[in-house]
């Protein structure tokens, strides 16, 4: 398979570091991000509620100072909460941390304060349609545009991500199940395999024990051109070739 096709299929972002090694970043989709957002919204609403109560108790005499405090706190929560946390060391708001997400630069580095600022100002555009308003003290919007922008960009970026050149990724590696290694005899492939094809075979080998036999055969049938056999026999031959490749390395 040509390299480009693999990149289209994969939601991982490959970045080459200065050390000469490539790292894979696991991009987070709209769903976990929406959950993180919901969590952050609840936290902001909670803070606003507490501030309102405190201000109400303190300024029983004159409501004017309290009103000023309320407006300023509302402003900084609406515009500053996300920027403050995302520009911080962990690159994630409380909601994102709870879901194991963080914001990074496309190069894999932490984002700068400027990037955090830009992506969160443009949150307003991602909130469309439905006019975001500060009437309730904090910004609320439907995030329809942000959602569709996520779906139509390869790396699940909303408008703010595109302008600030940022990605939202998982912080933890994917949980990989491992089972027994298949017991087959190694078998030399009849043709020379490209690097990507070797990787695909090795992946097939290490994951084979997690699948049912029907699923293993279904996948090995796609490689019948290589194994020259279909069904059970094809699967055994494919696993054998994978084993041969792994042993040779």
């Amino acid at each position, binding site marked *: 398979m040509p390299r480009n096709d693999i990149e289209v299929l994969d939601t991982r972002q490959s970045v080459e*570091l200065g*050390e*000469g*090694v*490539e*790292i*894979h*970043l696991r991009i987070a989709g709209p769903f976990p991000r929406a959950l993180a957002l919901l969590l952050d919204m609840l936290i902001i609403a909670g803070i606003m509620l507490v501030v309102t109560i405190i201000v109400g108790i303190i300024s029983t005499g*004159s409501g*004017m*100072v309290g*009103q*000023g*405090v*309320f*407006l*300023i706190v*509302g*402003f900084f929560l*609406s*515009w500053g909460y996300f920027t403050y946390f995302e520009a911080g*060391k*962990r690159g994630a708001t409380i909601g994102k941390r709870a879901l194991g997400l963080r914001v*990074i630069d496309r190069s*894999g*580095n*932490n984002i*700068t*304060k*400027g*990037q955090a*600022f*830009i992506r969160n*100002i*443009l*949150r*307003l*555009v991602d909130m*469309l349609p439905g006019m975001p308003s*500060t009437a309730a003290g904090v910004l609320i919007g439907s995030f329809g545009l942000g959602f569709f922008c996520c779906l139509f960009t390869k790396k699940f970026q909303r*408008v703010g991500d*595109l*302008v*600030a*050149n940022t990605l939202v990724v998982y*912080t*933890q*590696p*994917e949980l*990989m199940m*491992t089972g027994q290694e298949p017991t087959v005899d190694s078998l030399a492939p009849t043709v020379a395999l490209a690097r990507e094809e*070797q*990787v695909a075979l*090795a*992946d097939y080998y*290490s*994951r084979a024990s997690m699948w049912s036999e029907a699923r293993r055969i279904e996948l090995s049938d796609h490689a019948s051109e290589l194994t020259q056999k279909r069904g059970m026999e094809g699967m055994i031959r494919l696993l054998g070739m994978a084993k041969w*490749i*792994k042993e040779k*390395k």
Partner: protein
Amino acid sequence: MKEQDFEAKNLPEWRKYDATMEILEKGDVSAVDISKVPAQVRSRCLDLSLARHRLYGSRMCEYLNFQVTRGHNLVAKTEGGVREKMVHFFVAGFPQAMRREWRLLVICWLFFLVPFFGMWLSYDHDQEWVHSLLGEAERESMDEWYGKDSTGSMRDEFGSNFAMFGHYINNNIGIDLLIIAGGALAGVGSLFILLSNGLQMGAAMAYVMNEGSPERLLSFVSGHAPYELLGMIVAGMAGMRIGLALIKPGQLSRGKALMESGKLGLPLIMGACALTFIAAIIEGFWSAEQNPPELKYWVGYIGWFLLAVYFIFVGRNNQSRRIVIKK
């Protein structure tokens, strides 16, 4: 080397690295010898490349990938000091960005001033436009604040200056940010908000100048107008910078142009916020004070003059240019 042997050989090292990373991620720099950390990260890079090359299982590759990523995040930091950046922004970055984007400055002023004066002048010919734009309630409150018969202080209640300061922060900077974000809609949002603000302010101006007490209005707005109006215009420029990336990406792809526009627009975004913040302070604590109108007018003139000097002359010498190149 077999996968199991590789893992067995390196596992103690990986465990140690894992522990070091956990300490560093908590921000506790003193607990580990940080001079060794870059070398440790590089050897994880080596492990990862070996594991990939030898087609070890994806579980190990994922694990090493994770270790390299977190190490890289700790080692490769680009941020300079915040204070240094702030100083650079005010003595060079902001005025330079304004001069670089002078075309956008002109366009945004036009989109504000043409409707502003158009509305104002229309009053002499047809009062319907101004009246219908302002509406009944708005005209009544204008009569109350800036009417021919209104006297006395604008804010009597204790703490009302602070309340208004809060309001200006929330509302005015909020509008600036709205203008900037509106730029992402191919610039239409920015220009629309500038235009509608021009119409609204022009109508208010026409109404008070003709039916109310011009002195009350002008002495109120003159102090903060330079910063507030320019803040709004600069927000429009930042929005247009982003919008133009979509309309006219030039040699770049639209995605690349958007990224670039973010970088180019950042000083303008920060500048708009800074100017509007200054305006909110003046509007909250100075504009409504009872001082002679002449004094207030002069504060306004000096404001415009200072801004002009700042944007024309600051950040032109070699020293500040070198800072930019170094970046």
